[in-house]
């Protein structure tokens, strides 16, 4: 079952590349792999924890105030992640900037709380949170690798290809858009081929 879930989160229903959720942080933080990984793992932590707690409280939360309640739960974990990052990973916190607190409005987390965690038991919600988060991180890493290598000829901050002058546009705004367009296009093409063939 776990294998199936993993495949679902990372490939079939990848939050960024298939569901097109959580776009803001993915374009902004995919300028280098360290940033992308950091953001992905932070979001995964928040997603897993909030899924668990929403599932825990799902019978107690009245329907009318469920969105504010979800927001409070998510915001709590985002703040905890923020404080932990400021204390133990200050360099990463500086690089990610306002996108760490913006995890609270990441459509993926609210979306999963609403669509899954409020309707399923704790264990399943935890697994869902983890695999969706991993899918998010995975997509972020793909985008980051492309952008960092093409845009600054570096990987993890170290030079990569000899005699290659990087195309700076890839680490700037337009590059983000182009990269995600092509990666999405490739994913769709592969899916279409798989289905239509």
């Amino acid at each position, binding site marked *: 079952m776990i294998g199936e879930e993993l495949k679902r989160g990372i490939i079939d229903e990848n939050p960024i590349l298939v569901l097109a959720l959580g776009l803001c942080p993915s374009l902004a933080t995919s*300028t280098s792999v360290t940033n992308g990984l950091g953001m992905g793992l932070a979001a995964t932590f928040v997603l897993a924890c909030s899924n668990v707690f929403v599932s825990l*409280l799902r019978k*107690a*939360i*009245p329907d*009318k*105030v469920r969105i*504010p*309640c979800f927001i*409070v*739960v998510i*915001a*709590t974990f985002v*703040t*905890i992640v923020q*404080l*932990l990052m*400021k*204390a*133990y990973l*200050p360099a990463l916190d500086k690089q990610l900037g306002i996108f760490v607190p913006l995890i609270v409005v990441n459509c993926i987390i609210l979306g999963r709380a609403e669509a899954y965690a409020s309707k399923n038991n704790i264990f399943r919600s935890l697994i869902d949170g983890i695999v969706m988060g991993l899918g998010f991180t995975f997509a972020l890493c793909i985008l980051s690798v492309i952008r960092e290598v093409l*845009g*600054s000829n*570096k*990987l*993890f901050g*170290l*030079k*990569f290809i*000899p005699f290659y002058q*990087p195309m*700076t546009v890839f*680490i*700037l705004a337009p590059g983000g858009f182009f990269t995600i367009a092509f990666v999405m296009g490739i994913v769709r093409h592969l899916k279409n081929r798989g289905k239509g063939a």
Partner: protein
Amino acid sequence: MIRMTVVLTLITCAAALLIAFTNVKTKDKIAGQQAAAQAAALQQILPEGATVTPATVQTDDGTVNYWSVTAGNETYYAFRVGSRGYSSTISSLVCVDTVGIVVGMVVLEQSETPGLGTRVQEVLSKKYFWNGLIGPKEQAAPWFTEQFKGISIEKPIGIEKTKGEWHALSEPDRASLKEKNTITAITGSTISTRAVIKGISGKALQYFQAVRG
């Protein structure tokens, strides 16, 4: 209706407690991090074996914090200045001696154009990805700010754009630039270069003159 309010309030209180708990546990570490970063930056630009004392001085900008530095029998002053760059405020730390000669300088924060303006903090590395991950870390200093050593902030600082970048120049070339109180610009990034210079020949000079009296 009552139930909604009660549940929401309970959840918010629990959330607040959890956050407060985490805050208490991390507060000191966070404050420590910021102090450590400041101290590390100071270490980069100060001469060997220096002792630092924070101090304040009255200037046209109000009360400004700076550091009074003693190393052996020599006195130096360190200032933190900010100037408007191409797309962000460039924050630098500069240490000068009693006659306004730069002893050390480093750019602390900037968000300039990647690949161009960000080169004010660039450390030239010979390592590639595959041999960089293993092995000892290189300990080079950013060449752009290194070239300011020996420059006088009391005289106008010139920008040399035709000889290439400082890291590629020979010793005699570097010496002649220093005589003319000139530094080399980052190719294609005049505005960021000028901004860094503006920071030290503008604000830093102002504070230096206020301290010296």
